[in-house]
């Protein structure tokens, strides 16, 4: 049966030889620079994949009586970074509009973490993303995209304005710059590692350190 087929090729027992793919989400308000960031760090030309909304059930956008329109597509940006043969990062820009949120649930499943891009001129645009990842306990960093002409704020100010949980990193970045984008990803992976360790300790109980 095909389901078993999938299991049998699962990487769990295969160890080092199996391919490993890690997923990172890039979220933020419309125009915050999601597409730019994905494009800046990806080694492949930024691709857009499309999902058909009708597939997701009734959560189709409001077509208000336009009966002929059975499907709508929503595009997601995505990019790839190969760390080594068999280990790759995949970046997904989440759809910006609120009505496509159901797609986030699928995207965030098994995600290593997320980058929330913030534009200080419209900080409130990234509230929904911050909320989403906090509720689902998905590690994320807030990357403040420093648009030229926008006043720069200190990281602490942004953290306070967004009412972030303590420890959530805030990084200033330039989404157009690959080096800057890379730094954001490094901070995110580091943070995801810390969160994971902390949760392991939590679940094991007091005093049981990682040996």
């Amino acid at each position, binding site marked *: *049966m*095909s*389901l078993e*087929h*999938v*299991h049998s*090729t*699962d*990487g*769990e027992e*295969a160890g080092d030889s*199996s*391919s*490993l*793919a*890690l*997923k990172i989400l890039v979220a933020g308000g419309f125009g915050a620079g999601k597409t730019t960031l994905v494009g800046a760090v990806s080694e*492949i030309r930024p*691709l*857009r*994949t*499309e*999902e*058909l909304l009708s*597939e997701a059930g009734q959560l189709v956008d409001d077509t208000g009586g336009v009966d002929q329109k*059975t*499907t709508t*597509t929503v595009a*997601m940006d*995505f990019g*790839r*970074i190969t*760390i*080594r043969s068999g*280990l790759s*990062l*995949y970046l*997904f820009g989440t759809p910006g509009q609120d009505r496509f949120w159901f797609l986030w649930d*699928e*995207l965030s*499943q*098994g*995600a*290593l973490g997320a980058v929330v891009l913030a534009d200080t001129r419209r900080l409130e645009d990234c509230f929904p993303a911050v909320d989403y990842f906090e509720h689902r306990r998905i590690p994320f960093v807030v990357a403040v995209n420093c648009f030229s002409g926008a006043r720069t704020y200190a990281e602490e100010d942004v953290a306070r304005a967004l009412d972030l949980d303590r420890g959530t990193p805030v990084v200033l970045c330039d989404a157009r710059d690959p080096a800057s984008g*890379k730094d954001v*990803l*490094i901070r995110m*992976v*580091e943070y*995801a*590692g810390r969160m*994971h*360790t902390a949760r392991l300790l939590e679940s094991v109980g007091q005093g049981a350190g990682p040996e």
Partner: protein
Amino acid sequence: MPPGSQWYDAEAGPLVRPYAVTGGRTRSGPGGVRFDLIALVEADDAAADRRGASLLGPEHRALLSLCGQDARSVAELSADADLPVGVVRVLLGDLLEAGCVRVSRPVPPARLPDEWVLREVIDGLRAL
């Protein structure tokens, strides 16, 4: 001229309904496998030859050729084949059932960030 046809241009999108290539199916076969966007798909050439890929449609073959050299993620296949993810999932289900592809699933979230893997990712990013 059919009514409204003067409105067709590149912006109008595909003139064949996306799920036409799946025969109207929106779910993959009896196994009901749901392919993750980053599940890696690799063509099994030997099996594809053996089982007579002639039974498959042109879109199936396009997908097979896209993942013939290296394993590709479902998302990449969707972008490169210019087909919606939902459609690609159905077609991949067919290919899996026919034994034409191997699929490695992403690491389950519970054991996701092995410390050494994360270390490797961080070092790898720094070295880029």
